[in-house]
């Protein structure tokens, strides 16, 4: 049971985001493993454990050779990582990202399953998993709440607008998992030490046979024409609760005639 997990290293979401003059997201500070991806990594580790054989391979893309997020996932227990880092991918949109990830996944031989988060916490386009699946010609199920594997088949409970669907696919397949699907483990001290010596291959896009003009700004097929502040919502009255604040709320609701 070999599982590939797509992971993204992102600026800390606790810091306010900012754009560079060329409209790319600022990534100057230390990047961290996207919390959404920790669920995919944990799910992969559990599936490999349950199968009793195989390993977890990480695949990621970053413009500046950043590996700290990958080290975190390796410390959780993934066996190895492939990082695609190249100046040419600056400005890459979701489709470009999917092309690079799909090519990198192609380097991870003999995988049974590809896992990803449903969307990243920075760009949140939510299309990359399906684009990767389409490029690899894999069946796929998105928004998984539960994932089970038996007899070459993956069974998934898929979140829907009204409840959930029970879905099934033969392997190999791609599954995107929602936050909260499993409880991600914290890396142990032993895991952190072991992660330092695990294989981490850094590739350029030419190593993957991708033309630099085909991805990033030159290949984007979209152009940002304006970034401006959204109309602000004005703050109203803020009061300290003196034991009677509930009455103020009732009065407010009365005024709106919702009672």
């Amino acid at each position, binding site marked *: 049971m070999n599982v590939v997990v797509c992971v993204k290293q992102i600026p800390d979401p606790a810091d306010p985001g900012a754009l560079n003059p060329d409209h790319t997201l600022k990534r100057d500070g230390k990047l961290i493993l996207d919390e959404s991806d920790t669920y995919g990594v944990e799910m992969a580790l559990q599936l490999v454990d349950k199968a009793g054989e195989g390993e977890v391979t990480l695949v990621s893309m970053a413009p500046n050779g950043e590996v700290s997020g990958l080290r975190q996932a390796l410390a959780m227990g993934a066996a190895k990582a492939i990082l695609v880092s190249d100046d040419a991918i600056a400005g890459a949109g979701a489709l470009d990202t999917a092309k690079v990830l799909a090519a990198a996944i192609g380097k991870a031989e003999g995988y049974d399953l590809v896992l990803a988060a449903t969307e990243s916490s920075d760009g949140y386009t939510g299309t990359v998993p399906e684009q990767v699946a389409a490029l690899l010609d894999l069946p796929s199920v998105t928004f998984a709440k539960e994932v089970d594997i038996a007899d070459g088949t993956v069974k998934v409970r898929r979140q829907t607008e*009204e*409840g*959930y669907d029970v*879905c099934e696919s033969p392997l190999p397949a791609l599954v995107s998992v929602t936050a909260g699907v499993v409880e991600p483990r914290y890396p142990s001290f032993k895991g952190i030490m072991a992660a330092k010596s695990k294989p981490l291959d850094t590739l350029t896009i030419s190593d993957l046979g991708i033309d630099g003009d085909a991805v990033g700004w030159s290949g984007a*097929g979209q152009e940002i024409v304006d970034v*401006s502040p959204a109309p602000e919502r004005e703050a109203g009255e803020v*009061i300290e*609760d003196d034991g009677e604040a509930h009455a103020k*709320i009732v009065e407010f609701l009365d005024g709106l005639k919702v009672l």
Partner: protein
Amino acid sequence: MALSKIWVHCEVSEDTIAPITLEVLAKARTLTDQVEAFVGGPGDAVAETLGAHGVKKVHATGDLQGGMQGVHVAAALAAAIEGGEAPDLVMFGSTYDGRDIAARLSVKLDKPVITNNTDVEEDGDSIVVSEPIFGGTEIVKTKFAAGGPALATFRPKSFEAEEAGGGAAEVAELAVPEVGAAGAAKILDRHIEETSGPKLDEAAVVVSGGRGLGESDKFDMIEQLAKLLKGAPGASRAIVDAGWVPYAYQVGQTGKVVKPTVYIAAGISGATQHMVGMKGSKNIVAINKDPEAPIFGVADLGIVGDVHKVLPKLIEALQAR
């Protein structure tokens, strides 16, 4: 230039069209008279409602026999587009199936899809979409530069649905080509989770709880208050991830977008993820211990106080009425 033709993804559950589809249709009609819809399923049951919302023609795949929408509908659209039916713009909801189809189609056509938009406009010969970023504090406008058709998904509640008063839409077959191995995933069974009271994204009053509640059984207060106000209970991502309440309660970027008359946020600090989902509410009441909580920046009435003290009194006062 007026757009010559727009296609809109029609989402259907048990023969009922999802509100997002009708919202997007209303916007599409402002851009062209030639609005067509497509559905990954039978078309007859939706033709009348779609017609009433200005759709001239609905392209329907017929029953997908448990196949996933993404791969089949995208293949059918790509074939129709390559066969000469190309619209200028294909509009989807930012929903589970909408994103899947748009993503697969973008690979088939090798064109970008721009997601999570709240508006679309024509600018000369170009189509420009608007997407809020950083929790809705900034708006990015993006132009499609790869030639048509432009692919874009739109957040729920971005537009207001409105009937246009047309007759039933014509139903045309949307042929699904052979999709090979990629089509092997199947839906075996569907489960509808029964909820009582109004739906979260349709309720006039929403009462949401967050981590400030302290522990999961305190969410009872949220349920109780929502019931008293004939509203729906909601939640921040933090307590959904913590397993206190199901995902269906989540208000935010990755949950439901709500625009009720009144939104009450109890013990929610106002992370950008949450603000995206509730900022459009007409009136916001926030209760939080931390006077610096970002939620107070958008609240019409902010109460700096302990939810464990304020909520029980509020519930009692409402019960007494």
